[in-house]
């Protein structure tokens, strides 16, 4: 009864959409989108997600995109606009995780994480913003992390996510007058390839990592990509039209 905007028939663009949180977001948005652009560095998993979306009745296109390359992102977004006619929702979800103690962190490791998360969000938003303004009820949801509060041995990741939250608030100010809401989700410990690989690199058995992560969450369990996708779905839906510049923590804990 409080819905003001019908989200059916919208067009979404999701980066990092081939796996983990990005792919879960695509599946969740399938219920309210007529078309979804599935962007990922690796085409193969993106194709699998697109096939799944197609089976759900969504017009899904894939684009092999390095989000740190502004030109390649702009080219992909141009193709999305040509194919679908509009863009209503943008979710930059591409990410990586390469950690090291600060004195051992190489400039390459630092840059890799900063550019994938933060610059990758900038390139996608920059390329899409014209279409979002034209949409009338455009939505951007950035993906931060509870690591924005600080995380040992992953200073690049913590800094990138803190930057993501600053980007969220800045874009909320900049795009709000044009009717574009900009928010972020900040997941806690989620079961993804990223977190499984991180545990493996540290020589931690996944079952032990889950146990440790569950102990950190007041609700007593780690999260799944679908938990984050549900929050994103809310932030692009009709019930959140008066919410902007916010970071919604999805971590099973205060």
């Amino acid at each position: 009864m409080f819905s003001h905007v019908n989200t059916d028939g919208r067009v979404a663009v999701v980066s990092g959409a081939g796996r983990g949180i990005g792919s879960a977001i695509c599946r969740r948005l399938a219920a309210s989108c007529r078309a979804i652009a599935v962007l990922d560095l690796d085409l193969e998993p993106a194709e699998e997600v697109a096939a799944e979306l197609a089976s759900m009745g969504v017009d899904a296109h894939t684009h092999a995109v390095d989000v740190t390359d502004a030109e390649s992102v702009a080219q992909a977004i141009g193709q999305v606009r040509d194919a679908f006619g509009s863009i209503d929702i943008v979710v930059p979800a591409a990410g990586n995780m390469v950690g090291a103690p600060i004195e051992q962190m190489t400039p390459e490791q630092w840059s890799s994480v900063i550019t994938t998360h933060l610059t990758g969000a900038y390139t996608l938003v920059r390329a899409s913003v014209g279409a979002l303004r034209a949409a009338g009820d455009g939505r951007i949801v950035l993906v931060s992390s509870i690591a924005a509060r600080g995380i040992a041995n992953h200073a690049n990741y913590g800094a990138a996510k803190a930057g993501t939250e600053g980007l969220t608030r800045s874009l909320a100010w900049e795009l709000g007058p044009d009717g574009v809401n900009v928010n972020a989700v900040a997941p806690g410990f989620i079961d993804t390839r990223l977190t499984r690989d991180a545990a493996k690199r540290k020589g931690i058995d996944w079952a032990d990592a889950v146990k440790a992560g569950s102990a950190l969450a007041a609700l007593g369990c780690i999260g799944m990509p679908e938990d984050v996708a549900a929050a994103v779905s809310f932030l692009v839906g009709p019930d959140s039209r008066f919410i902007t510049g916010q970071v919604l923590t999805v971590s099973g804990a205060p």
Partner: protein
Amino acid sequence: MCDVSTGAVVRLSRSAAFELAGSNNRVIAVDSGPVPTNIFGPAPPSTGSTIPLRRGVVADVLAPIIFPVSDAALWITGQTLNVDGGCSLT
């Protein structure tokens, strides 16, 4: 005083979230921006600044309440949802 008591509610929801998590109960606060109500009257107090979105109405702050109590928010607790058009950014 309204601002002080609202701040206390936000802290209360956080503490209650910790206390009730063991029984799998979740607590989420909704912090609404000033909208025309019986308390504020037709012209709610201004923050003195512009806000990112246009001024809201009661329905705008009621609509998001459905989300925290739904199955879509099962892994969210102790959070405050600012439903204020970006007023809290000022």
